[in-house]
């Protein structure tokens, strides 16, 4: 095998990442490829990006494997038609098995951090307390993680957002205040942000401090290799050690594998492929799983949506997409009781609005024509803290791709009904002329009392009530007890010596908050711990 530096497949990402960095676009491979390194990391999102920087800083040779493409600021054109197919899993149309929940997940270099809306929350203390007390997870209390949150906040420029919220977010603050509900300002990972509002299509100004512009260039600068358009297929084992990862090179659109195969050998393997990808990789690899925990207890923050028409222009397509939140209904709902929910606002671009608004034809067009006056709230339900909220299960479909089966239980629907009520109340209090809970045929209501009466009678059900998710968590939970946890408190898979999981699949429940900062902090801590146990320089990245 030739040195990959000479391979025609090698693409230099010029000024975009690091000049001369080793970036291999697997879709252009004209032969099979075998590489070796100290560490192979599957996934380049929040977990993989942090791990790559930490481990390469420790002098270890690192290969990152990413299923999606490498796209950078100059290719981010604020176009939904381009961004969703290119940068998201399944063209942003990933669903659960019964198709009742739409899942937004990144699939590009930087993963979710390249396309998320920059919301940065430390893991809520109530969540960490539940992990410690109910789940007996040691070492992940708020005070244990505080230095790691602080470190990540510094590294990724996470701080208060000082510009005025856009009118879509301001309506949440205004309406909530009017009914006595506290809101807060969301911290964001940006530098030099000019408030465009297109975070979900990739930041065209490199203002968002995603993995794409921070840790990945840093790792590449220290000699890491990045392979894009490569789908991790199987971990090849020898006893209790993983010896290699086999990958399929994908075609240029990332739809089907080409005939090229990639074999990556390493001392240590890290799966950071996310809450569906990581369990999928482990299941495909038939790793030992004596207590059948892999892929179980997968959580989504099931999210319901309420649309409103405001008398004044809102322009929810411009301005930082998420800047105001309310935790009133997580803070006042103790964990273990009825499900709590976090209130936020989403960006309102035409495609996202069109696929979210129910029905079609004239009723749909009627609302679309009022896009400038549209105001939308979302409620993210905190799943996984109650026996009636066991989450979903990742399994493999016949072609080996992972699929999440997530039954929506009556426990979740009860919270959805409360969330619809609250969102409508806030929207009317903010001055809405009409509120349309996103449910059924999408009837609009002109008065709070009418909306409330209707919501109380809604038949909430899969595919009748649209549910969305942008946060897949769990499936490989942390914990000392292998009967319940897939990985130990160092992030090492319980039943293998050199396989680690550093991503959102570690979480034993959902978080009750947007997950990126939790993933950053836990991945930073676990990868620092791992780096201390590895001997650098055993292998440089080379072809064998």
């Amino acid at each position: 095998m030739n040195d990959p530096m000479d391979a025609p497949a090698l693409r230099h990402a010029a000024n975009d990442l690091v000049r001369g960095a080793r970036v291999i676009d697997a879709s252009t491979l004209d032969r099979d490829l075998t590489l070796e390194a100290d560490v192979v990391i599957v996934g380049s999102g929040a977990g993989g990006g942090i791990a790559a920087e930490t481990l390469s800083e420790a002098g270890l040779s690192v290969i990152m494997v990413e299923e999606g493409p490498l796209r950078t600021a100059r290719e981010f054109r604020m176009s939904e038609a381009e961004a969703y197919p290119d940068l998201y899993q399944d063209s942003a149309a990933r669903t659960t098995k019964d198709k009742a929940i739409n899942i937004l997940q990144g699939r590009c270099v930087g993963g979710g951090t390249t396309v998320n809306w920059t919301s940065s929350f430390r893991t809520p203390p109530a969540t960490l307390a539940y992990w410690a007390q109910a789940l007996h997870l040691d070492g992940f209390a708020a005070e244990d993680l505080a230095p790691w949150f602080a470190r990540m906040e510094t590294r990724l420029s996470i701080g208060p957002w000082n510009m005025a919220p856009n009118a879509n977010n301001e309506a949440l603050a205004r309406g909530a205040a009017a009914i006595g509900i506290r809101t807060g300002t969301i911290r964001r990972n940006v530098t030099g942000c000019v408030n465009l509002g297109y975070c979900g299509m990739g930041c065209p100004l490199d203002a968002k401090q995603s993995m794409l512009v921070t840790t990945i260039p840093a790792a590449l600068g220290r000699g890491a290799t990045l392979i894009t358009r490569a789908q991790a297929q199987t971990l090849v084992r020898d006893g209790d050690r993983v010896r290699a990862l086999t990958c399929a090179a994908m075609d240029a659109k990332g739809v089907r594998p080409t005939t090229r195969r990639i074999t990556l050998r390493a001392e240590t393997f890290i799966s950071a492929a996310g809450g569906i990808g990581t369990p999928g990789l482990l299941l495909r690899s038939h790793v030992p799983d004596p207590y059948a925990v892999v892929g179980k207890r997968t959580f989504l923050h099931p999210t319901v949506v309420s649309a409103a028409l405001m008398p004044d222009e809102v322009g929810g397509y411009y301005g930082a997409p998420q800047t105001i939140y309310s935790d009133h209904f997580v803070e006042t709902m103790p964990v273990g009781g009825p499900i709590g929910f976090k209130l936020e606002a989403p960006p309102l671009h035409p495609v996202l609005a069109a696929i979210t608004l129910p029905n079609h034809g004239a009723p749909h067009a009627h609302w679309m024509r009022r896009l400038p006056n549209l105001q939308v709230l979302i409620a993210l339900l905190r799943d996984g803290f109650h026996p009636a909220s066991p989450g979903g299960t990742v399994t493999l479909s016949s072609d080996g791709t992972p699929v999440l089966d997530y039954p929506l239980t009556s426990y979740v629907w009860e919270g959805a009904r409360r969330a619809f009520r609250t969102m409508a109340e806030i929207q009317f209090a903010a001055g809405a002329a009409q509120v349309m809970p996103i449910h059924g045929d999408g009837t609009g209501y002109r008065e709070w009392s009418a909306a409330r009466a209707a919501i109380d009678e809604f038949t909430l059900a899969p595919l009748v009530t649209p549910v969305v998710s942008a946060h897949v968590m769990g499936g490989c939970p942390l914990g000392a007890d292998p009967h319940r946890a897939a990985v130990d408190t160092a992030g090492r898979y319980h039943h293998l010596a050199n396989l680690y999981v550093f991503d959102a699949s570690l979480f034993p429940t959902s978080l009750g908050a947007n997950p990126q900062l939790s993933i950053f902090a836990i991945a930073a801590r676990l990868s620092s711990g791992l780096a201390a146990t590895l001997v650098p320089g055993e292998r440089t990245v080379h072809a064998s």
Partner: protein
Amino acid sequence: MTTRRTFLVVGLAGGATLVAADWLRRTRGRSPALGANAALATLDPAAPAIVAAIVPVMLDGALPADPADRRAAVTETVANVARAVSGLAPNAQKELGELFSLLSLPPTRVALAGVMTPWADASPEAIAAFLERWRTSGWMLLRSAYDALHQLVLAAWYGNPRAWPSIGYPGPPVLAR
């Protein structure tokens, strides 16, 4: 493994229908290159015509009034649906292929969609009735098929800058770089 869609067809009309649908799809082969709609025609030769029939009804009230603009809008929307389909995962493409086979074969078109004529001859009212029937179906499978059509068609139109003036979306800001 029995997929839910397989189960649907077996339950409805016996396994023969699915076998026939599959056989027809293969033996009818691929239509000669259909340019922008090739990805749709690959799913099922009748798929471009089915989508072209559904688009004006699903986008009733949204398309331009001028006949020439309207024709162009429909053509572009069908092409954008095809482009979207070509980017979907193989499993999703397979499921859509099964959906279009059900819609194209006369027995299932009549029984499931309630559309009595070939799609090209179907009246807007007949297509509207079909969409309403599936949107409100008690059968989760038909609802999810409606959702798939809803997403594909509405994203294909509203992702098109031609749609933006009518909804007051000024488009993304122009960046000086």
